[in-house]
């Protein structure tokens, strides 16, 4: 059991790091430049959401198989790290797999179970595509049009401080491991202590951050500077997205 030995040997956060995209990674890739990165957030949001809807709707094997290929192709165009995406996919894939293994037991065909699995992973990939090509602030700007301001502001701050918290936790666990490897039970209580002291630290930091924000004029609404222009390119891209969605749905209904 490789994962059990992992837990015993280090309770290592690096394992979690490998299986989940960490915020620094996400921010790093989302600020890179490619044709796809330069599109307006609304365009990328429209693409990911409509492709997920289409994926869910399709039922012909051939057409469903087309969807993961589509998202992989766009990821290549956007120069995303496919290997990292693959390892981040393990978590959603495991969730989907647990569910899909049960399906044949309750009377579903094996093929249907496989299709649901493929659809779930593809949907996760379309979300990765969005997250890895769009900076948090841009998503937050769209979110703040829909969400109440306290929630949007919390998201913006969380995107800044989550990974600081993550780094600190990692440093503390590393320091702990560097001074010997206590038995698992004791290790768990130590980790709980680490978390508690991190929360206290974050609370103190939050107070300072609040002073910094209010001295710079914060009155309950975070202004965002990042200017985004809706260009001809976006109009063309959205038209193409719609055309592709309709074609797929049309093919599903009339051709297959």
């Amino acid at each position, binding site marked *: 059991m490789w994962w059990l030995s992992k837990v015993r040997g280090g309770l290592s956060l690096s394992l979690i790091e490998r299986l989940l995209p960490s915020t620094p990674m996400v921010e790093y890739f989302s600020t890179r430049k490619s044709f796809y990165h330069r599109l307006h957030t609304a365009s990328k949001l429209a693409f990911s959401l409509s492709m997920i809807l289409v994926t869910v709707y399709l039922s012909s094997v051939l057409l469903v198989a087309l969807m993961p290929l589509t998202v992989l192709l766009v990821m290549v165009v956007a120069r995303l790290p496919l290997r990292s995406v693959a390892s981040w996919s393990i978590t959603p894939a495991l969730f989907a797999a647990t569910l899909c293994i049960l399906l044949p037991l309750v009377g579903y065909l094996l093929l249907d179970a496989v299709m649901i699995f493929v659809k779930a992973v593809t949907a996760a990939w379309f979300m990765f595509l969005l997250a890895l090509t769009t900076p948090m602030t841009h998503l937050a700007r769209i979110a703040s049009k829909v969400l109440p301001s306290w929630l949007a502001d919390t998201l913006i701050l969380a995107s*800044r401080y989550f990974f600081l918290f993550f780094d600190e936790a990692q440093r503390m666990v590393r320091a702990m491991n560097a001074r010997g490897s206590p038995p698992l039970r004791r290790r768990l209580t130590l980790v709980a202590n680490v978390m508690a002291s991190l929360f206290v630290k974050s609370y103190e930091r939050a107070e300072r951050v609040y*002073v910094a924000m209010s001295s*710079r*004029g914060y009155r309950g609404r975070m202004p965002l500077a990042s200017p985004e222009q809706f260009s001809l390119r976006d109009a063309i891209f959205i038209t193409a997205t719609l055309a592709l969605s309709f074609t797929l749905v049309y093919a599903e209904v009339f051709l297959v």
Partner: protein
Amino acid sequence: MKAVEVDCVEHVYPDGTRALCGARLEVEEGESVAILGPNGSGKTTLILHLNGTLLPSEGAVRIFGKPVSKKNLDWVRRTVGVVFQNPDEQLFMPTVFEDVAFGPLNIMPRDKALREAESIMEELGITELRDRIPHFLSGGQKRLAAIAGVVAMKPRILVLDEPTIGLDSKARDRIIQTLSRLKEHYGLTLIFSTFDVEIVPLLADKVVVLKDGCVIYQGGVRGALTDTSLLREACLDQPPYVRLAEELGLKEKPLTLKEASSLFSRLIQTIRR
């Protein structure tokens, strides 16, 4: 006019630590003051009183004659810009440009605010950090970005807590140059804390020495940095050239490299003659 008056301020933290005991301090408008003291002497506590982050347990802090209280915190924080020691507490937006523009966007029309942010970043030479994520900047870059965000609010008094701590010498020089340029350009009143005696003569007109929460000296830079017993009492180093001059038994005590080189070249010429 007096920009800052700290009048007999006592501060007792909730756990009972008495971090300031009767601190007195006066800063004239346009002056540059170094708060000098070892770790734990109360520098941060004093600085956090200047913009009302902490309020005194006893005594009063006055900014341009007005006592700091809960009622005028908005005005106080607009007048006194504080750069905290830890830039991570100051850079709260996801990118550097977002952070610098945050303040201006809160107080002026959008176009003007964005231009303002651009021009401050240009002035501090950090335009290339525009879209960078604060988490991945170096210590010096973080410090400059934090200063930009505060200066963009156009405070009349700029306060910095240990602005050069933990920086390599190149980054330190850059911060010092930036601060003297900003002071010149905006006519700022500058207050900074440090235990690095070498940067004091480069930036300050006046020194306040803190020890265990008490002000034990307030006056000229030369007076403080050449007073061996004062420095020893406050657990501070002597500036290197002062120490050299003392070892050599010279009467004149140079504070900076410039002063030292002019002193020694004069000495060398006298010897040659």
